[in-house]
């Protein structure tokens, strides 16, 4: 039965979000670029191809260990453009600010955006600011859109995974989502977990610079690695097998997930990528990622198979097998 109201589940990045996109948004705009549903759209223009992506940031709290809404807003869009195999160049910034929002907080958010842009090597070239009456927005909402150039030799897409590809994950899972959750709930943990918010465009440039055949690049944000792998399995009509004992998770994050009953596979990341690479080139790409500043914990977590196309399976630590399904609704409210 179709719901007649928007629910928080529609924003979780899981099945409800996908359903909304497929049933409402795709038909309304009806074009092949959008229908690919990659992290950004790759578009042919006079002179070559550009990648174009947008994202809106509504995270609460605004400031948290390891980051803020400001650097998320820059890094998130930089990363989505990079996941198209592009070098991100220019960003726009649109802000909707609630009346009464402290000026000092705005200064801090903007300063962090500036810093993040410089770190990523991108330029914010256009923007817009609106203020709405108190209660009409929750503190501040930020939209960023970004463009970058895609080299002619590059062809990355969620539909390109092939049996035999290895799945590389660039580092530990669930750092961002669990940081937000523990901050929001005011849960006091004696641990130093922090968001992994980071720009990945330099890592992507290094990966593409190897000249290897890169089939898929994706950053597992909302819905986590588990949901992203399902999206890729579905779009590529291929099966994916991952190995639980290879999944990198920080011990502190693992512990918090256990106590709170969260599965790290479905928790958001903001500074990690998945790369699908043919088996004979995977080790080379892995080495390059491990040398990159944000990739030292990178590892191969699984492979693409002929079996069970469209589904993701996991070999558990004790040698059993189980399905890894897509997240249905929200595990966390608003994370980016």
């Amino acid at each position, binding site marked *: 039965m179709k719901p007649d109201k928007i*629910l928080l589940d529609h924003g979780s990045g899981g099945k409800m979000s996908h359903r909304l996109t497929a049933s409402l948004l795709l038909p309304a705009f009806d074009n092949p670029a959008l229908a690919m549903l990659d992290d950004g759209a790759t578009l042919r223009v006079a002179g070559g191809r550009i990648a174009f992506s947008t994202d809106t940031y509504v995270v609460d709290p605004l400031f948290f260990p390891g980051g803020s809404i400001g650097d998320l807003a820059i890094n998130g869009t930089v990363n989505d453009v990079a996941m198209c195999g592009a070098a991100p160049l220019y960003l726009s910034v649109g802000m909707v600010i609630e009346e009464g929002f402290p000026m000092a907080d705005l200064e801090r958010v903007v300063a962090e955006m500036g810093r993040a842009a410089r770190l990523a090597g991108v330029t914010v070239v256009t923007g817009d600011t609106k203020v709405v009456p108190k209660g009409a927005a929750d503190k501040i909402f930020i939209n960023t859109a970004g463009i970058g150039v895609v080299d002619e030799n590059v062809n990355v897409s969620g539909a390109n995974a092939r049996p035999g590809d290895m799945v590389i994950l660039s580092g530990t899972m669930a750092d961002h989502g669990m940081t937000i959750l523990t901050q929001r709930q005011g849960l006091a943990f004696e641990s130093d977990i922090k968001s992994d918010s980071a720009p990945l465009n330099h890592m992507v440039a290094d990966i593409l610079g190897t000249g290897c055949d890169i089939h898929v690049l994706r950053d597992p944000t909302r819905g986590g690695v588990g949901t992203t792998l399902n999206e890729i399995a579905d779009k590529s009509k291929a099966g994916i097998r991952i190995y639980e*004992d290879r999944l990198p998770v920080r*011990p502190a994050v693992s512990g918090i997930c256990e106590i*709170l009953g969260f599965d790290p596979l479905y928790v958001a990341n903001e500074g990690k990528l998945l790369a699908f690479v043919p088996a004979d080139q995977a080790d080379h790409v892995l080495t390059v990622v491990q040398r990159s500043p944000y990739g030292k914990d990178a590892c191969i977590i699984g492979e693409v198979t002929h079996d069970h196309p469209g*589904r993701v399976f996991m070999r558990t*630590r004790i040698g*059993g097998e189980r399905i890894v*399904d897509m997240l249905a609704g929200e595990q966390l409210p608003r994370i980016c």
Partner: protein
Amino acid sequence: MMTLKQSDAFHDPQIARHLTERITRASRRPVRFMEVCGTHTVSIFRSGIRSLLPETIALLSGPGCPVCVTAQKEIDAFIALAREPETIVVTFGDLIRVPGSGSSLQREKADGADVRIVYSTFDAVNLARENPDKRVVFLGVGFETTAPTVAAAILAAHQQKLDNFSVVSAHKTVPMALEALADGEININGFLLPGHVSVIIGLDAYRPFFETHRVPCVVAGFEPADLLQGIAMLVDQVESGQPALENAYPRAVSAAGNPKAMAVMNEVFEIADADWRGLGTIPASGLTIREAYAAFDAVKVFDIQLKPAPEPKGCACGQILTGVKIPPQCPLYKTVCNPMAPVGPCMVSSEGTCAAYYRYHGDG
């Protein structure tokens, strides 16, 4: 307290293989074991244990999901509370997606009701203190693992002299439900007893049940090695023809349980008959708030009248909760009922059997 490194041992593939081999070697007779606890169902799926057990062993899920066994009329009462003016409804996350007869707490929240999700009942007490002009009502769902903390929260509210805090108690207790299961439709050859409930009530709480029915019973923990150990012990009991009440979770469960927690629970709650979805009325299986704490009993504060409500048409939750059917045998499973559009609570709760099958079982 176990460190994370120690907990690695419970996922050790060597230990798991050793236990699986022991089970496979010993298991001759086809048996049906019921894991009573919803968290056991999920843990068994998540660890991949089902794929490792021999064909002789069928694992059935039981009614150990407190959200799933909450009767439809109580869900409707929760939803009605969300519509009360100047009222904050506070709940554990699981309840918000459960469909009532016409709505859900999640829908009410989208419609503007003040519904808050917490991890601890004490957060509800804090909300009451911080919002003196509102009535704060906590939805008390859970077994003996949870009831003591809810009781402690009521005591805290009493101590703080709060006049705007109350609890709807839909709490239930496990041992009497076992009686209903053992007398039920299907032949259960052994029970994997709940881990955390047993931490509170102690192994001895199951003795009356065991003495009456003489069916294999093992209390188990939640790590893969715990679960395999529990299943191995059940198999040994069946094959030897010597049923016993055994504890495979001694690092957390003792014979007497946690007397302090029990005392707090009994201070605030008293035993009453309770209606369980799927099992009907089970005597002495529910907890209601004692007269002395009537000021904190939402049933009295809000004058809650429970209106009998039929289970959703076609929903086999009742039979699934008693192990008579498995989710793929429900006519609505996947086709009509799924986590995004659930018909019954078993598909929605994080410990629900149908949700677990849907997420982890695939097309089998």
